C-alpha cells in the first residue's frame, strides 16, 4: 500500500474535474445474468484480435483490471487473482483480463506496458485485452476494478459481480472470503447451476473516458 501513494499523488496533479454537462450518460444497459452475453472483439496486448464468441464451448471469465487500483493490488499482491486464474485455466476456462482505463487516466496501459506488467505480476490470464475507449466495459456495465463476469459454454452470462464477498482492501480478508468466481466455476464444472449469480462488485471505479 505504501507505493500506491506516490501513484495517487501523481494522478492528483493531473486531476481533471469531470463535469461534462448533459453528456454524462449512464452506462449502457447492463448485460442480464442468464441471457446471452454480448459478443465483442478487442485487441490484446500483443495486437491480436480476440473475439468472445470464438471461445464458445468453454467457460470464459472476464476480469476488469486497473493496475493502479488498491483493490486490484489486494488480489494481485497477495497472489489471490493469479491463483484463481491458474485454477480456472486448469479447468479449461478461458480468462480475459480487460483494461477499460482511458488514455491519461489511472491504470491505462499500452500493449508494451501491459506485457511488462503481465510478466512482473505473474498474471495467468489467457489474454490481456485493451479497451481504452471503454466500449466493451460500458456494454457490460463494468463499474469497478475488479469486476468479474462468467460466460458459460453456451455463451450465457452466468455470473457478474465482485471477486469475493469481503469488500475491503485488506489482504487478510481474502482467506475468510468466499471467492465467487472459483465457486461458480466449480459449480459449472460439476454441471450444477451457479448458486450466487450476482454479487456486489467492489473496488475503484473504472476510469472511463470522459
Amino acid at each position, binding site marked *: 500500500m505504501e507505493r500506491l501513494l506516490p501513484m495517487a499523488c501523481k494522478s492528483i496533479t493531473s486531476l481533471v474535474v469531470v*463535469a461534462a454537462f448533459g453528456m454524462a450518460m449512464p*452506462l449502457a444497459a447492463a448485460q442480464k445474468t442468464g441471457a446471452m452475453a454480448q459478443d465483442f472483439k478487442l485487441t490484446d496486448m500483443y495486437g491480436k484480435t480476440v473475439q468472445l464468441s470464438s471461445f464458445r464451448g468453454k467457460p470464459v471469465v472476464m476480469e476488469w483490471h486497473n493496475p493502479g487500483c488498491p483493490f486490484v493490488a489486494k488480489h494481485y499482491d497477495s497472489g489471490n487473482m493469479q491463483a484463481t486464474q491458474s485454477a480456472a485455466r486448469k479447468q479449461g476456462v478461458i480468462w480475459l483480463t480487460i483494461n477499460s482505463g482511458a488514455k491519461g487516466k489511472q491504470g491505462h496501459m499500452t500493449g508494451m506496458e501491459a506485457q511488462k506488467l503481465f510478466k512482473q505480476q505473474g498474471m495467468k490470464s489467457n489474454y490481456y485485452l485493451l479497451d481504452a475507449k471503454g466500449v466493451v466495459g460500458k456494454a457490460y456495465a463494468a463499474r469497478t476494478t475488479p469486476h468479474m463476469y462468467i460466460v458459460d459454454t453456451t455463451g450465457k452470462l452466468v455470473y457478474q459481480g465482485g471477486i469475493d464477498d469481503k469488500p475491503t*482492501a485488506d489482504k487478510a480478508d481474502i482467506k475468510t472470503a468466499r471467492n465467487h468466481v472459483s465457486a461458480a466455476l466449480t459449480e459449472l464444472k460439476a454441471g450444477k447451476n451457479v448458486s450466487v449469480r450476482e454479487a456486489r462488485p467492489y473496488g475503484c*471505479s473504472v476510469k472511463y473516458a470522459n
Partner: protein
Amino acid sequence: MLLAMTTALLFAALIGLAPAMGPALSPANAQLNGKRELNVPAKLVAETQKVQAGQQVTLAFVMTPKPTWHGYWENPGDAGIGMSFDWTLPDGVTAGTARYPVPDRLLISGIMNYIYEGDYAVLVNLSLPDTIKPGPLPISVKSAWLACTDEVCVPEQDELSITLQVVEQAGGKDAVIAQNDAFNHYRNALPRPLGNPATFMVKDDLFRLSVPVPASLDIETPYFFIKEDGIVDYASPQKVNRDGDRLIIETAARGDALKAISGVLKIGPDTGLSLDASAGDVEMSGVPISTGDDSGNFTDGGGQSNAQFGARSTATLLFIALGGAIIGGLLLNLMPCVFPILSLKAISLAKAGGDEAVVRRDALAYTAGVVLVAAALGGLLLALRASGAAVGWAFQLQDPRIIFVLLALVTAIGFNLAGLFELPNVNFGNRLAQKDGAAGSFWTGALAAFVATPCTGPFMAAALGATIVLPPAAALIIFAGLGVGLALPFLLIAFVPAIRSRLPKPGPWLDGFRKAMAVPMFLTAIGLIWLLGRQIGTDGLALSLIFLLCAALILWWLGGGQAKGLSRGVVSTGALIAAIIGGVLFLPGEDAMDSRKMPNASAATLASEPFSEATLAQLRSDNRPVFAYFTADWCITCKANEAAAIQRQETADAFAAANVAVLMGDWTRADPTISNFLEKHGRAGVPLYLYYAPGKDPVILPQILTVSTLTELVA
C-alpha cells in the same frame, strides 16, 4: 455533590484524561496512524465526556476530506465502499448502527458515486449496561473507509480511541451534561425519518417509488438515494412527478430481488427524509417536476458543489445554456404575447427600406431594450435568490400586483393594436420607422422583453435552471442571451437586406393585419386574468377588472381626442396611472394570498405559541394544561391530523373553555431543541402529540388524531 464532582474531576485528571485541554472532547489524532497522512482524516469525539450506567452516548466520526477528496455514503453507489467499524468495547457496552448525513451525488464518466465532499460526521450510539461501574470507559474502534478523488481511490483506515468517564447517577443531571454543541450540527445533517411508509415497484426494467409528502411542501431537485444495492441503476436519471400528496420517482431498475427497501429522499440542499418502502403497485401519475438530472455531474451540496466545477465545465455549461437561451428567446417571438409587437415592428422597418442607417440604428436600439430588460429581470431574480427567496423565472408572476400591471399593459397594447388609440412614442407599426427614433425602438424592445416573460415556456426551463449553478456573471450572460434571441429576427431583418426585401410591402392590408394582431394580445390578457383569478379569487378579480375597464375607458377617451386632433396626453396619462395604482392597491397582498393557499396554517382556527422547553416549563408551573404538537411541512400525517382534528372549531372551543395552552414545534427545518425533545420522548421524528394535564405526567397521544381524542382530554 460538589465533593462528588471534584472527586470525579480529580480522578479524570489522574488517569491522564486532561479534561482541561478541551471540554468534553478527546479527539483521537488520526495523523498519528503510521507514517502516512490520510486524505480523509477521521476524528472520534463523544457528545458527553461523562456517561451514566444504563444510558446512551452518541459518538461522532468527524471526517474532514482534503480538497478534491471525498468519502462515501453507506451505499457508495456504482463504485466505492462505505465505512466499516470494528469496535473494541468494555463488557456489556454495545455500539448501534452508524447514522450517515444526507449524501451528495458525483457522476464520473457514467459511474455514480454517493459521496461527501465537505466535512461530515457519522454518528454511532453506544449503549451502556445498567451494571457498569463508575470509572474510565475506554472505547476503541478500527475503522476503514475509502477516500477518492475523481481520479484515484485510496483505502484508508485508522484506529481511533477515546476514554469516557462513567459517573454515579447520584451526581444528578449536572454531572453528566457537558454537551458538545457540534453534535446539534451533526444531527441536523442527518436525514429525518419520514413516518409514513413508501411503496416501490420494479417492473419492465423500471423502478418506481411513491413517497407520501404533502402537496404543499416545497421540494428542490429531489433525488432518491437507495440503501440496498442491486435494485436501482444508480447512474440513470430520476424522473420525478408530484401527484397530490405523493411524490413519484422513476428510474431504471437493475433487479427486483427485494420486497422491502430503504433510503434517503433528498428534497433540498441540506434536507433529506429517510424512508422505508415495501413492494406494491406504483403508477407514474401526476405532474413532472424538474430534477437536477440534466446536470448529472453536479453534486447538489449547495455552495460546495460550485467549487467543484472546473473552469472547462463551467464554460461548457455556459455555452450550452447560452445556446438554449438564444434559441428559446428566438422561439418566444412566435408566442402570442410577443408576435404582434414583433411582426408589426418588422414591417415598419421594412417600410424604412431605403435608409439602411436608420433601420440598423432602430434594430440596435430595440435589441438594447430587449437585452437590458431581460438582464435586469435576471439580475433581480439572482438577487432575490441570493437573499434566500425560493423564486424561479417568471417569479414576478407570483405577485398579483405585478400580474395586474402586466394585464393592464397587455390590454392597452391590445386596444392600441385594435386602433382605439395611438401612442406618441412606442409605436407598433402604424407610422414610419424614421419617426419613431431610436428611443421609440428601445422602449418597444424593453416592452417586448417584459411582456414576453409570461410566455417563457418550459423550453426555457433547462437553460434558466443552469443559471442556478453558474456564477452570477455567467448567469447574467444567459439572461442577456435570452434577450439576444428575442431580438434576433429583428437584427436579421435590419442587417440582411435580402430578408427585408422579402417582407410584404406595407399597404392598406397592414391596418387589417394590425387589428388582427390584437387577438393574440387579448388572449394573453385572458391568460393573465385566469392567473390573477387563481391567486386572488373571483371577488378580487372582479374589482381589478373594474379598474382595468377604467383604464380602457381612459384610453378610449385619449383615442377619441387623437382622432379630433386634441392632445389629451397629460390628463389621460395621469388618469391611467391613477387607475392602475388603484387596481394595485385594492389587490390583496401576499399575506392574504398565503393564508388563502394554506387554510391549515397556524393563523387558522387553533392559535398556538412556538414550542420551547422554557415555555412548557413556565406553563406547567402555572398549572395550565398544555397541548404540544410537533409537525413539519413534509409530514403528511401531521398535515392530515391538523386538518382533521387540531385546526377544528370544536377543538379550539374545547381547548379555549379549558384554558389549554397550545404549543407548536415546527420541525420543517431541523431544530436541535425540538430534535432533542423528540428523542427524549423516544421519537425519531414527527408527528408527536403530548397532553400535559396540570400536575400529572404527560400523555403521548396516538399518531392518528380525531376531534374527540382531543376534546375528551379536557372534558
